[in-house]
């Protein structure tokens, strides 16, 4: 029985050697799955593969029981999958508000309500709505990035290292917001460097090494697994 959004047997890369070697990641609505692993393990690549941004040699991506492996990234976005990339995840030369509007590009209904919802989630964005996104601080940019992704009212949200380069206080804040989003019923996948903290809010966790699922399990299980602790959580 597949979860709401799931990938399996993903193998492939950028044309050269395979970066992903038979890996799979799943998440349910209203839950958070966390992907951790060393640098270069293929975490970002796995995210891109699930969004269809790279062509895989094999592997399936299922959304709500439907195989979406053949869809383009745009079509997957239209199907309700939102993605916040690791780098260059905002339109730096557009204002905050325009960033949000662009997130809703595919929508033809009134988006003002959604924008207000996002201002409620991230109040600072309301204050800075007419400022260029590129001029904001690191934490604020990540909020813009998440806000832009939420504009499609997605059922799945994939975040690639959303806390990279932000201060610990802002990081806690951001995790709180992510939990809030989860509580609205969105399925969330987070790739994280801060493995300990991320796994502590995870319903399910994956440790990716060399493009393979090295460990999988409930977040708390992984946190307590001595092997995982030793190798990835610093003892």
């Amino acid at each position, binding site marked *: 029985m597949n979860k709401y959004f799931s990938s399996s047997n993903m193998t492939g890369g950028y044309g050269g050697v395979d970066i992903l070697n038979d890996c799979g990641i799943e998440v349910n609505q209203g839950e958070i799955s966390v992907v951790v692993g060393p640098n270069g393990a293929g975490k970002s690549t796995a995210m891109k593969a699930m969004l269809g941004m790279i062509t895989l040699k094999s592997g399936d991506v299922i959304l709500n029981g439907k195989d979406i492996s053949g869809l383009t*990234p*745009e079509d997957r976005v239209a199907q309700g999958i939102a993605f916040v*990339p690791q780098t260059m995840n905002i*339109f730096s*030369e*557009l204002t905050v508000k325009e960033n949000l*509007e662009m997130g809703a590009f*595919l929508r033809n209904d009134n988006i003002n309500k959604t924008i207000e919802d996002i201002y409620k989630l991230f109040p600072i964005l309301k204050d800075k709505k007419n400022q260029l996104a590129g001029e904001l601080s690191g934490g604020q940019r990540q909020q813009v990035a998440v806000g832009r992704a939420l504009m499609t009212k997605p059922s799945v949200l994939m975040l690639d290292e959303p806390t990279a380069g932000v201060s610990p206080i802002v990081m806690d804040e951001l995790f709180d917001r992510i939990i809030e989003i989860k509580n609205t019923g969105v399925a969330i996948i987070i790739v994280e460097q801060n493995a300990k903290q991320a796994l502590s809010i995870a319903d399910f966790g994956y440790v990716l090494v060399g493009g393979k699922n090295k460990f999988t399990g409930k977040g708390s299980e992984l946190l307590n697994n001595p092997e995982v602790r030793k190798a990835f959580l610093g003892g």
Partner: protein
Amino acid sequence: MENFDILNALILLANFVIVPAISYGSQLAIAALGITIVYAVLRFSNFAHGDLMSFGTMTAILFTWLFQNLGITGGVLPTALIALPFAIIVTALLCLLIDKSVYRFYRKQKSHAVVFMIVSVGVMFILNATVRFIIGPNDRTFFDGEKFLIRALDFKASTGLEEGLTIKSTQLITVIVAIITMLLLFYFLQKTKMGKAMRAYSNNEDLALLSGINPDRVVMITWIIVGALGTIAGVLYGLDKSFKPFTYFQLLLPMFAAAIVGGIGNPIGAVVGGYIIAFSEIMLTYAYKKFFIYLLPEHLEPSGLMQFLSTDYKFAISFIILVIVLIIRPTGVFRGKTI
């Protein structure tokens, strides 16, 4: 105080520097906007833009002739203004055709910008040949209607000044059409969903894709805008001066200089750059002798022409300004790159 004739000096300057520079600057601004938008969205320096302008102008001339034959004229206004929308449509369609048959292939391949630049040289050859084939390489004027808004003689008669001020109707038309064009363009880029999507695509292509912005649509709209801007700039220039295909190729240098000086990829920069280049070109090639004769006492009057550079070298001025800006501030006056 007989020698200190500031009013005549100012009229002299207005007549020979300010009015021509404003109108030439407006033409350059619209032309540079086309270059800067191709650069921002499609990410290459379009060497074919001068010849695209020449094609657009040729189309407008052909429509003008057609209308004149049909007995349709603009009255006091040049018939070319009626022809302009039709020429824009034809030129925009041509841009789309060229994109589909030429540039698209390299976009899909994600070719390097310099490859696009060389491809644009090929397009330049073809456009150049097409224009010469259809209308020939010679100078043509296609202006009709009322030529002057203010005539020097009338001006002198009514003001009693020694210096006359001439304002050609084409100069006023240039400024009005240019302002309307810029307002429309900036409204489109800043206020409409598609305009914002274009800026978003220009700023961060991958994220634009992730937001569901259709790149083909963006490219299509870009070429339509570029075709329109090129035609408008070309027709304004041709009405004001005359139409000669080779002149349009030569405009490439001041056009690029305007775009780069302003900050390539930045539309406001292109507009400002257009006026900077135009004013520099005209101010530095104007002979100020008479101007100083009005202002200085007799014994200080200059003997030479008081000209920085002969008009033969007006292209050198765009180049010098370009080099100075590149040395002092390589990103241009307004930081360039995206729209």
